[in-house]
């Protein structure tokens, strides 16, 4: 394995076999540091499995996942998370019985050992950070409200804020704008775009307008493998992509 400093994440020949069904089939993919990357693909293309493999939820049958020059295969989810991989789920998953602030405190807190959490209250810097994050996602006024009482969009944003709180090197964002209003979608796109550069962001989505707004390199997955890579314009004109996914423009 040659050293690879340019790429933050690379997947080499990753195959996931569910009882004969190849969810990922020799997938090869590289993400550069600071890159904003969108991944699209039809249902069953293996997008979620792809995230599962990176975050350690699913162990690939074959292949390598290299992150910051470390292999992620066989590592536990929380270890991978601590290495700097953050994940936002498709439907917002926040701790519904905790308040907004408590949610964020959990994601910001570091180190994440039980003893540390027991010993003292959150340190000042981290508390500051929590308030900062609330400001970013516009939830400052709702800091005491239970996350379960938030609207769908607010939950999405809270989860993104929690993701940011973990200060990950790589952010995996699964359908961040599902169920959001147009206005919220735009704000989310801007937010994600502003994160790129500093962070590396990988977005999975169906919403073509949203992807277009992100204005980044797009990878098309199909049947567990990369079908095509390029920017939005080239993709929309690629015959293969049109055939399997976009459909013919009327």
């Amino acid at each position: 394995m040659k050293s690879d400093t340019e790429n933050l994440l690379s997947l080499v020949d990753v195959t996931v076999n569910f009882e004969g069904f190849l969810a990922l089939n020799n997938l090869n993919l590289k993400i550069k540091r600071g890159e904003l990357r969108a991944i699209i693909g039809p249902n069953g293309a293996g997008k979620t499995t792809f995230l599962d493999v990176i975050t350690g939820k699913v162990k690939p049958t074959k292949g390598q996942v290299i992150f910051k020059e470390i292999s992620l295969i066989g590592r536990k989810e929380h270890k991978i998370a601590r290495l700097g991989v953050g994940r936002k789920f498709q439907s917002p998953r926040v701790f519904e019985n905790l308040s907004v602030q408590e949610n964020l405190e959990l994601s910001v807190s570091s180190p994440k050992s039980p003893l540390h959490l027991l010993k003292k209250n959150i340190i000042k810097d981290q508390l500051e950070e929590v308030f900062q994050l609330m400001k970013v996602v516009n939830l400052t006024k709702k800091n005491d409200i239970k996350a379960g009482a938030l609207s769908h969009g607010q939950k999405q944003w809270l989860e993104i804020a929690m993701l940011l709180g973990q200060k990950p090197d790589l952010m995996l964002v699964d359908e961040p704008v599902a169920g959001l209003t147009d206005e919220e979608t735009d704000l989310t796109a801007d937010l994600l775009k502003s994160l790129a550069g500093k962070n590396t962001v990988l977005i999975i989505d169906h919403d073509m307008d949203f992807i277009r707004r992100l204005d980044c390199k797009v990878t098309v997955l199909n049947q567990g493998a990369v079908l095509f890579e390029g920017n939005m314009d080239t993709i929309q004109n690629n015959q293969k992509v049109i055939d399997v996914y976009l459909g013919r423009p009327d």
Partner: protein
Amino acid sequence: MELLLDSIFNGIAIGSVLLVAALGLAIVFGLMGVINLAHGELMMLGAYTTYVTQLIFKLPILKPFYNWYVIISIFLAFIVSGVVGIILEKTIIRKLYGSPLETLLATWGVSLILQQFVRSVPLSYGSGLIISLLIGMVLPLFFPTKIKESIKFKYYKLASWSFATLIGILSAELISSLISKLGRASSRNVDVTAPAWMRGQIEILGNTFPKTRLMIIIITLISVIAIICFLNQSAWGIRIRAVTQNRQMCDCLGISTEKVDVITFGIGSGLAGVAGVAVSLLGSVGPNVGGNYIVGCFMVVVLGGVGNLLGTIFASFGIGIMTDLIGAGRLLNIWPNMPLSLSNTINFFATTSMARVMIFALIVIFLQFKPSGLFPQKGRMVES
């Protein structure tokens, strides 16, 4: 080799009891995700049904058919436990879908009540109650469609329930007047005696095998085959499996998921009743008869892997054979010259008491390597 064969025979004998007891549990747990701690008490109802049937068949009119009362009681036990199961589902369990821990606690409450019920209520009244419930539930199904759709249906229903109650009370009185043993509440254990043709032993492959055990194996076999056929061939079986896989989709397709739930739970409970018949042939029948089996059943289901009948079958025979191997200290016979320390250890566990300790410990260790049991459910939906 001969010793091993002997062990396998014994293991099958022990395992078949476990299997028949665990079958209903495995179905309810596997298909509905419901942990039914009252399963043992449903077995108990089945066992009491056998007892009542036996006494009824001792009446002069039915005496000629006495030899066949066990066969009849299998069907009756299925119905009795099934009816109680359906009532349970409709009143309590339905409210708790999706929260298995709560179901577990509620069914424990049910098991306490059922246990005390058979202690404090005379069996004749218990039978009367079951009869009236059965009639009350079944009768409205036979009403012509015209009545079913009319606004006055509830009055008809009321009428049919009153009729059912009347029949129930009458039959309770009838039973207690005919058989005085059933007319009195008693916490005393009662006993089922197998008819003469089911007692004694037969020889298979040079091994003697008790006939009652063979009968239980046959009951188990028939139940397993019937269940597999039902789930795979019948329309309702296919619906049940469909609901297990995707409830919302089934709702959309017009399958009454409520009805499916009732039927699944009813069948699981009915099988508990059948298990009760089997158990009653081996030991005495009392309020605790089912409770003695329940933890063993859970072990079978956990070891076998949820939602997999094959796993249940393997697990029960596996536990059965292990029980015999460890409990009877057979390894010592198979391997006579083992080191002293090892043979001491084996002797330590070669009592029925310690064998149980050993087997549960082995299961826990086994689950360290295969947390989802022998035959885990596969696919990406499992963890979510």
